[in-house]
């Protein structure tokens, strides 16, 4: 049986570039589906096809059981779209924006007005409701945009990089809204560049690169594929590498190997147990008199997924936000990293999105 979103063999080329190269999707009703991939992977193109904005070269899709290509206008009645940019008219007030969208969803003027009032309350915009949207902060505009996408409470929602460019507080707020939505039964397809976001919100994740699905599964399944968390240590003296390896081996997960890079004096070991284990490792190393320059708990990042799945980092593309952190390894918040390589990457530790526009 077809789910809320179903797509088969979607292909879309722009000139020589195959933005979608045979993408299949199947999203069960009432779930959150994360479409994960770097800039240019084809995420936005997939969303544009599913929301009737773009005709694929081949393939088929249904949304809410309706054929996207044959009956696009019926699909439009059943979806909400919130894109990468807050698509609101900045010279209209928040209320006017929502009323306009409601009326264009073919609500009666009275229903549109009532609904606008409800949504402004719900998204904490009531006080700013009668100010023009250009006086809004970035977070408020996003909320207004999201409210506009929810005017008819569509059964299927599409959100294209909803948190890109938002500060942490607004991102958290948006995540809460998304969780509420899903609790209410909405099916949601969201695209993101951030594993943590997909991890936090999505029931199932689909990783795409170069227009192809390269992996899918739950976030646990993907992480298992990547190899879970690991401890990275940089010791002060090269002579201590050997002792350190013995110490780390005691904490390793299963029969995993401790890998050593003598040049950078860096040791890496897959572990299980999170921050508490990290503390144990530190005590253990300390007890053995090993000097530590840097130590951190590293969780799998999107790049780890990539490297693991494709054997390469998608670095041949433009230097987008995702690739930049590979060197830094996206350390987890528990990292004591102060001097370790790739500070730029560490800034995004824990998947904090930077402002990236596609």
């Amino acid at each position, binding site marked *: 049986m077809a789910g809320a979103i179903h797509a088969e063999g979607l292909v879309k080329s722009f000139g020589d570039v195959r933005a979608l190269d045979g993408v299949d999707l199947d999203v069960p009703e009432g779930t959150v589906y994360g479409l994960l991939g770097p800039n240019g992977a084809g995420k936005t193109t997939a969303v544009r096809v599913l929301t009737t904005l773009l005709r694929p070269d081949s393939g088929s899709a249904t949304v809410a059981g309706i054929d996207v290509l044959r009956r696009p206008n019926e699909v439009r009645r059943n979806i909400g779209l919130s894109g990468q940019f807050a698509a609101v008219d900045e*010279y209209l007030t928040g209320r006017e924006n929502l009323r306009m969208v409601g009326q*264009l969803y073919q*609500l009666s003027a009275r229903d549109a007005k009532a609904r606008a009032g409800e949504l402004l309350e719900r998204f904490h915009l009531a006080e700013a409701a009668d100010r023009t949207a250009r006086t809004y902060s970035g977070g408020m505009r996003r909320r207004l945009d999201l409210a506009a996408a929810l005017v008819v409470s569509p059964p299927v929602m599409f959100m294209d990089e909803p948190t890109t460019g938002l500060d942490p507080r607004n991102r958290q707020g948006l995540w809460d809204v998304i969780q509420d939505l899903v609790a209410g039964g909405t099916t949601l397809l969201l695209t993101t560049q951030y594993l943590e976001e997909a991890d936090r919100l999505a029931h199932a994740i689909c990783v795409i690169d170069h227009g192809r699905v390269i992996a899918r599964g739950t976030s646990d399944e993907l992480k298992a594929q990547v190899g879970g968390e690991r401890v990275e240590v940089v010791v002060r003296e090269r002579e201590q590498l050997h002792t350190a390896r013995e110490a780390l081996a005691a904490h390793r997960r299963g029969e995993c190997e401790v890998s050593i890079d003598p040049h950078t004096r860096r040791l890496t070991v897959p572990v299980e147990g999170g921050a508490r284990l990290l503390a144990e490792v530190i005590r253990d190393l300390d007890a053995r008199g090993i000097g530590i320059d840097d130590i951190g708990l590293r969780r799998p990042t999107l790049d780890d997924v990539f490297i693991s799945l494709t054997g390469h980092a998608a670095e041949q593309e433009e230097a987008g936000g995702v690739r930049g952190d590979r060197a830094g390894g996206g350390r987890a918040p528990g990292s004591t990293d102060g001097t370790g390589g790739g500070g730029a990457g560490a800034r995004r530790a824990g998947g904090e999105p930077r402002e990236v526009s596609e």
Partner: protein
Amino acid sequence: MSTYSGGNPASGGSPATGGGTASGGPLARTPVSGGGLRQAVGDSLIVARRNLIRMVRIPEVLIFALVQPVMFVVLFSYVFGGSISVPGFGLDAAGYREYLMAGIFAQTVTFATAGAGAGIAEDMHKGLIDRFRSLPMTRGAVMTGRTLADAVQTALTLVVLAVVAALVGWRFHEGVPKALLAFALLLLLGYAFTWIGALIGLIVRTPEAATSGGLIWLFPLTFISVAFVPSENMPSFLAHIAEWNPFSATVMACRELFGNLGPGYQAPDAWPMQHPVLASVLYSVLIIVVFRTLAVRKYRSAAV
């Protein structure tokens, strides 16, 4: 797993029958089904209203739209007046002002092209066109709404322009009904040109490019015409172009309806010059049909 209740939202036209998804409360939702012409008109008016609200909130746009033609009236009247000989008036400055005004009026309405183009391009740029395209609204409504709002602006501009023209000595001599018909032809011409602007806006995608792209070709179009100088004084190939220029038809029609042609004036032989009112209507309608079709087609496939 169940499918969406109602299974086929098409039949009831009622989405999200699964109950309060987002609001958690009863949902206001009675989408009008079918739609057709009524929906098309309704959607267009909603978008037009939106653009009119913008116009009020960004008054600079309207002010500049007014200043520029007023400047033209004054400059052309006093700088060229007395130097340009027009049939029926000779080198009389007051006569040239009579002759000139229809040309300025017509040129002014065509400048709305740039505004329409820039507006649509800005909507593209800001992602609003994507939002509109993802809504169950009539396909042409975004541009129709824009062009209708522009027509309101054009009408306001014409009122101001007529007052200024009257101040510098312009008059109509054939009665109010004919003068109103002339203004109606001008509005229709302006409306037609905003559809060209809408298409340009959809193609170029940035407001800046749409502004220049909407204006630049208007200069040869409006100058190689009978708007500012009579075609009789042009080289013959230019005279032909000028006389068949759609823009000239409206200018000539207005002169005829305002009674701004000098005594004993003989219109050129070209058909549009002999039947300017009819030609003006036909040209404008043709432009609307062609460019509306192209613009709606472009809108359907508009891709970032």
